[in-house]
């Protein structure tokens, strides 16, 4: 309990606010890494997932990829890429690792969202004369959005956690305090930084939970409510 209090005290200490790495800066870097990686991953995985879901082509590969990716140890991937890219390219190497980790859940969310759309609805859309593109854009994507947001949610949470590990390779992000704390045996700092990461993760999760509900199309939500 005492350590907990010390950890909280550390968070608001002048040391954390304006030391060699101010907390606000660490949080900003941490979030920047997260958002940039998830955005890049989404730019790749979302269109790919939609195409897979719409055409059914490459589905096996997408399923295998999402499954296999779960087994990849994230820390190992970060270290491996730093070695491959060379130590002078730590930012690029870490970002690439985060992107690779974020792709599978986003891909899964995108294609399963499209796939989960009632086939009868898709059939109806084609039957009244929508082109394949219109079916995708006006029917499959909007109706599949909740599952896609779910994919983005798990990707973001995974990356937020993994960015912490980047503290081992570079002196940025909230991981920095943990790595440094271990070296100087400052447990209050370690726990304090860990708490900030947890709060960050919980807030992001909450945000996505709200978003996930917000994107459920009104007509679909209405099904569960009594009509006026």
């Amino acid at each position, binding site marked *: 309990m005492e350590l907990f209090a010390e950890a909280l005290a550390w968070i608001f200490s002048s040391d954390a606010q304006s030391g060699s790495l101010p907390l606000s800066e660490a949080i900003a870097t941490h979030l920047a890494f997260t958002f940039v990686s998830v955005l890049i991953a989404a730019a790749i995985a979302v269109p790919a997932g939609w195409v897979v879901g719409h055409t059914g082509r490459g589905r096996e590969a997408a399923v295998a990829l999402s499954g296999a990716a779960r087994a990849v140890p994230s820390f190992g991937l970060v270290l491996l890429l730093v070695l491959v890219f060379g130590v002078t390219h730590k930012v690029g190497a870490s970002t690439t690792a985060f992107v690779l980790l974020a792709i599978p859940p986003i891909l899964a969310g995108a294609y399963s969202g499209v796939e989960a759309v*009632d086939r*009868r*609805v898709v*059939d*109806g*859309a*084609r*039957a*009244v*004369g*929508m*082109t394949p593109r*219109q079916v995708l854009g*006006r*029917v499959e994507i*909007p*109706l599949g959005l909740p599952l896609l947001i779910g994919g983005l949610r798990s990707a973001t949470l995974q990356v937020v956690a993994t960015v912490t590990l980047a503290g081992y390779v570079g002196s940025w992000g909230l991981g920095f305090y943990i790595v440094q704390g271990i070296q100087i045996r400052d447990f209050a700092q370690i726990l304090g930084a860990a708490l900030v990461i947890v709060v960050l993760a919980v807030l992001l999760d909450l945000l996505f939970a709200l978003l996930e509900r917000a994107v459920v*199309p*009104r*007509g*679909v939500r*209405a*099904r569960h409510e009594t*009509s*006026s």
Partner: protein
Amino acid sequence: MIEFRSVTKTYPDGTDAVADFSLVVPAHTTTVLVGSSGSGKTTLLRMINRMVEPTSGTIEIDGESIADRDPVRLRRSIGYVLQNGGLLPHHRVVDNVATVLRLEGTPKNEARQQALEVLDVVGLDRRLADRYPSQLSGGQQQRVGVARALAADPNILLMDEPFGAVDPIVRSELQTETLRLQQQLHKTIVFVTHDIDEAFLLGDQVVILSTGAQVAQIGSPSEIIENPADDFVASFIGAERGARALHTKETGHGTVLVDGTGRTQGRLVEGGQGAA
């Protein structure tokens, strides 16, 4: 006019859904395809708007093979009421009805106005226009399906068991409504059902199908009832039993007609009018 010439459909899994089917569907009349489940009715219907491609044979609309038409344009020119509704759950009723108009580039307000008018035509309260399909009863959803099919004023209307999923009272209401609509609109309708009574009620021409879309008999309802082609047709239309096996009974007030269950169905009158 729609014409099937020796049309065959074998699905990729080897199912012979339609074998060597030929039929002429005259313009501005209702042709009903009736047969038991799996006889190939939906397959036949969906070949007309190229949702299903025939394995062999040709289908012509007004003498032109549809194989040469762009499927998307073809579908927009044909109204289609799906077996299960197939409405867009995330679009309001009015937007569902306006779908084809919007796809064809009609400006939003104009499309909405036209869609509202079509709601009147199919007997749907305009107050339902801003609801979502999930907020409607089954019967109302079917009417929306019909309205959507009619919105762009197509010459051809395909209806696949449109009233299959509603209760008998709503069903008969919708059937009456369909008859009224057809008197007004004179579309070329191809209507699919497995209900022979519905077929006889709505059809100018009735096509009775057995497995593989084999034509058991084609004719007007009267022709089929008066002269069933074979035992299959006779038993399918229930000629020997129930409501269609009528006999006369003399009573003190004249001759009445009694059905197979012994219920009196009507009175025999001289010089009754109607189609022979």
